[in-house]
C-alpha cells in the first residue's frame, strides 16, 4: 500500500494540506481556456472567481471548431460565466497556442454535457 513508510507518510501529510483547496487563484490574470457545458470553448483573461466557480473573463473570444473550415474566433469582450455552466478551466500556454495553425484545424464541435 502506498504511504506506509515514514518518509512517504510525511510527504502525504504535506500533500494533504496543499491538496485541499483547488482555488483558481493561481490562474488570475492569466489567459485561460474555458469549456462550457454547452460545448463552447471560450478563451480570455481570468479576472475573478468565487466558490461557485462563477468567473469573470476579460478580453474573451469564442473559438468555434468545425469540420468544414478552420477555427473561427468571435470576439466577446468582458464576460461573466456562471459556474453552473462551466466544465473545464485550462491554463493556456501562450507559446504552444502561438505555434498552432488554426486555419488548418478541423474538428467536430464539443458535445454538450449530459448529466
Amino acid at each position: 500500500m502506498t504511504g506506509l513508510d515514514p518518509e512517504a507518510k510525511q510527504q502525504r501529510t504535506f500533500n494533504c494540506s496543499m491538496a485541499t483547496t483547488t482555488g483558481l487563484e493561481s490562474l488570475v490574470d492569466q489567459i485561460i481556456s474555458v469549456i462550457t457545458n454547452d460545448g463552447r470553448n471560450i478563451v480570455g483573461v481570468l479576472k475573478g472567481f468565487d466558490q461557485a466557480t462563477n468567473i469573470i473573463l476579460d478580453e474573451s473570444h469564442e473559438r468555434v471548431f468545425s469540420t468544414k473550415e478552420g477555427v473561427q474566433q468571435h470576439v466577446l469582450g468582458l464576460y461573466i460565466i456562471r459556474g453552473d455552466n462551466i466544465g473545464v478551466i485550462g491554463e493556456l500556454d501562450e507559446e504552444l497556442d502561438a505555434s498552432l495553425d488554426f486555419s488548418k484545424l478541423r474538428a467536430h464541435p464539443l458535445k454538450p454535457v449530459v448529466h
Partner: protein
Amino acid sequence: MLFFSYFKDLVGQEVTVELKNDLAIRGTLHSVDQYLNIKLENTRVVDQDKFPHMLSVRNCFIRGSVVRYVQLPPDGVDVDLLHDAARREARGA
C-alpha cells in the same frame, strides 16, 4: 468526505478524467477539493485528433459536477482499505 480523503491520498498519481461530454483528459493529480473539483497538471487530451480544443492547455481545473469517471492506475488503489472505509461510512460512522 470519503472520496475527498481518498483523492487527497492519490495526489501525484497519473489519472484519466472522463467528462460528461465524452472528453477524456489524462494528467497528474495536483489537487482536489470538497466539491471533488480536480486540478490536473501536465495534461493531454486522450484522443487529440478528435478533440484539438485543448491542445495548448497543460494544466487544468475540472469542475466536479462535470466528471463522469476518474480512471486510476490499478496498483495505486488499496481496494480492501477502500472497501472497509466505505463500509464504515455507510454504517454512519
